[in-house]
């Protein structure tokens, strides 16, 4: 990626992270659409021999041989038996029956996590710079599980099974599927097995935001990653015939528009289809569109396809307007015709002009790449949001990372829009999604693993979470682009990742396999349900009191019930959580600070001070939440911070009433 290393402070702190040795021992497994091995991001210059721990393979198949791998891309496998069992044999004229990536997504995620340094990277000159993965010296193992028809659970489980056997250290999964109990969800089950072997599993949170309860991959042994923006934009202004200008974004690079205002029509008025405004395939009337700029509404079909539909109908350009679903979030695309995307407010204003002037005209002014955009990061509207619908007592997402307009490696088999009509070939592409934020965390977790090989997956996640930030340097809270207001822990979890701070967190909240098994007892899973995950007989002790509140998680979620009828005003509920901190720094004394945004919840921590004299020393504390009854759907947010003056170990708090 370009820009994200600078945005995350990795460029200024390069000497803090191991450059060789342990860094090149870390292996990141990526389950995705495969890999394009010819990408410059897989150049293995300067890398030593493949780690001796590696047991994987470079499988052969369509246009992929064992020599496709090297000392950077050390493994590549494909899993298609489940896919083929359901949908029939793979059509090798359309997709490679091999680890080869015909889609681009897998190459993008793998290079984001651990791509080598490539100078002069860009997409048509956009986002130009030196591209690199987060963990430049880590090794990559690609596991192709996603095909044209989707990613099947049997194949995903097989890939996870093999990745564990191959000895990967980190697993990155930028995929998800609905919401189901952990003993029914293949990703959760596979991740549990990986976690048992000391592998950190990082998963995307999903792109179903900003609706609440829209998260996937919420198991507590998974690191769940939401998406935020960078300080980079690709402005392309809409200039109307009435003299007004509106901000938009675009990655269009091609024949420029004529330097004059052009006739402008709303797609909904150039179609006989009831949803003509969406510019779906074959819905525009060419006679009404030919030679004109067309305004389309976002939604239902892919954004780039709308541009293709306008072009096919004879349109010469497109203005793509967000609707309420996306608000003011602007996602740039490498459209096949001159086009720009505008937010809902601008879109509404442009529509007013279009509806009021039968001779409306417009042009688009493309401005290239701009950096230093503030505020940044902001939470992406599409990033899935809490609460956690499976276990509301575990706050998810865990944190956010860059996931909007991310430049990274791409497949040579497909153009940047992914459309069949797009015959352009690019080495790098710019795309958005929690798919893009997840491998940022996977790579950063790889850096931490290299720096602290002894840390457990939970310790690495704790370091990433407790050092994440929730405020800009100005002190203002990180914004949510969906609302334009401050985001909450349901949007950003513990906050935005700060890898330099995560390297030296001071204290960590650690978790063992037994802790997770006790968690399963606490959520009342039956013995067979637990056995599915544990892979052995495991019976909860009937004499023991299990509580989710005691899972040593680096965040606090306190779901409460509003009394039936909404009464009970004045009555209070007391909930106690227990946590244990492990010292991973120098001897020090930490003092607690408590922040609550409402008097309705009183939070106390006992003891208020913890002294650590040795490395790995553990100290426990209790948090008491005393909450008065509130109407359902009330959420109160807060924060607990332990600090010794040098480190700040922060945890978000959410108290919610349903």
């Amino acid at each position, binding site marked *: 990626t370009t820009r994200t290393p600078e945005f995350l402070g990795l460029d200024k702190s390069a000497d803090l992270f191991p450059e060789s040795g342990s860094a090149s021992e870390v292996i990141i497994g990526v389950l995705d659409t495969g890999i394009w091995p010819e990408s410059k991001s897989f150049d293995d210059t300067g890398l030593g021999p493949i780690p001796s721990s590696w047991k994987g393979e470079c499988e052969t198949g369509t246009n992929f041989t064992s020599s496709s791998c090297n000392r950077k891309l050390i493994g590549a496998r494909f899993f298609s*038996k489940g896919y083929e069992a*359901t949908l029939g044999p793979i059509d090798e004229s359309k997709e490679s029956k091999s680890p080869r990536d015909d889609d681009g997504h897998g190459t993008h995620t793998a290079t984001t996590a651990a791509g080598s340094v490539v100078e002069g990277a860009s997409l048509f000159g956009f986002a130009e710079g030196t591209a690199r993965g987060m963990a430049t010296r880590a090794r990559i193992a690609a596991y192709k599980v996603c095909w044209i028809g989707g*990613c*099947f659970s049997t194949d995903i*489980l097989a890939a996870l099974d093999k990745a564990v056997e191959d000895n990967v250290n980190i697993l990155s999964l930028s*995929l998800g599927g609905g919401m189901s109990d952990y003993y*029914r969800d*293949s990703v959760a089950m596979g991740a549990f097995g990986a976690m048992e072997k000391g592998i950190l599993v990082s998963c995307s949170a999903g792109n179903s935001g900003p609706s609440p309860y829209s998260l996937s991959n919420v198991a507590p042994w998974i690191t769940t990653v939401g998406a935020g923006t960078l300080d980079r934009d690709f402005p392309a202004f809409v200039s109307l015939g009435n003299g007004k200008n509106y901000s938009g974004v675009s990655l269009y690079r091609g024949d420029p528009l004529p330097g004059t205002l052009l006739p402008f029509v709303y797609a909904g008025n150039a179609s006989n289809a009831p949803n003509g405004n969406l510019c779906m395939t074959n819905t525009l009337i060419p006679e009404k569109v030919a030679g004109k700029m067309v305004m389309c509404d976002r939604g239902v079909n892919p954004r780039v396809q709308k541009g293709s539909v306008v072009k096919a109908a004879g349109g010469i350009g497109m203005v793509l307007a967000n609707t309420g679903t996306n608000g003011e979030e602007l996602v740039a695309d490498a459209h096949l015709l001159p086009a720009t995307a505008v937010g809902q407010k601008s879109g509404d204003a442009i529509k007013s002009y279009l509806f009021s002037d039968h001779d409306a005209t417009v042009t688009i002014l493309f401005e290239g790449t701009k950096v230093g955009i503030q505020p940044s990061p902001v939470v992406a509207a599409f990033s899935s949001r809490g609460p956690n619908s499976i276990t509301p007592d575990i706050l998810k997402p865990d944190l956010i990372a860059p996931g909007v307009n991310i430049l990274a490696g791409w497949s040579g088999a497909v153009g940047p829009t992914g459309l069949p009509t797009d015959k352009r070939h690019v080495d790098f592409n710019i795309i958005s999604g929690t798919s893009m934020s997840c491998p940022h965390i996977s790579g950063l977790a790889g850096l931490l693993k290299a720096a602290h090989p002894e840390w457990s997956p939970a310790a690495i996640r704790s370091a990433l979470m407790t050092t994440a930030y929730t405020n800009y340097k100005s002190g203002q809270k990180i914004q949510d682009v969906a609302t334009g207001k401050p985001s909450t822990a349901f949007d950003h979890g513990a906050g935005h990742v700060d890898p330099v701070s995560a390297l030296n967190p001071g204290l960590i909240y650690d978790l063992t396999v037994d802790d997770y098994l006790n968690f399963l007892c606490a959520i009342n899973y039956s013995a067979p349900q637990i056995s599915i995950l544990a892979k052995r*007989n495991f019976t909860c002790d009937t004499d023991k009191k299990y509580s989710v509140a005691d899972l040593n998680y680096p965040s606090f979620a306190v779901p409460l019930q509003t009394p039936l009828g909404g009464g009970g005003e004045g009555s209070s509920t007391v909930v106690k959580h227990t946590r244990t901190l492990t010292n991973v720094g120098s001897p020090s004394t930490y003092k607690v600070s408590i922040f609550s945004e409402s008097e309705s919840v009183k939070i106390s921590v006992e003891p208020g001070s913890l002294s650590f004299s040795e490395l790995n020393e553990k100290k426990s504390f209790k948090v008491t939440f005393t909450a008065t009854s509130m109407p359902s759907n009330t959420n109160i947010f807060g924060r607990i911070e332990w600090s010794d003056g040098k480190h700040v170990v922060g945890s978000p708090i959410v108290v919610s009433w349903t």
Partner: protein
Amino acid sequence: NDEERRTYIVHMATSQMPESFQERAHWYDSSLKSVSESAEMLYKYSNVIHGFSTRLTAEEARSLQGRPGILSILEEVRYELH
């Protein structure tokens, strides 16, 4: 359609494997063959879960569910890229 085959992931309780079997794979095979002569295994899982995946009719799946050592039988789920 009861005759239609669907893909299932079968979770096995290996602690309940009869002593007559030396290897899990043989036990999985035997369990599967007890409900379907024609069904083939897609994958055997040995690290992150214990079990296998296969194609079964609804009746075969119900029958397998009742066999000793079967923890659960879950139908294939399609996931999507984010």
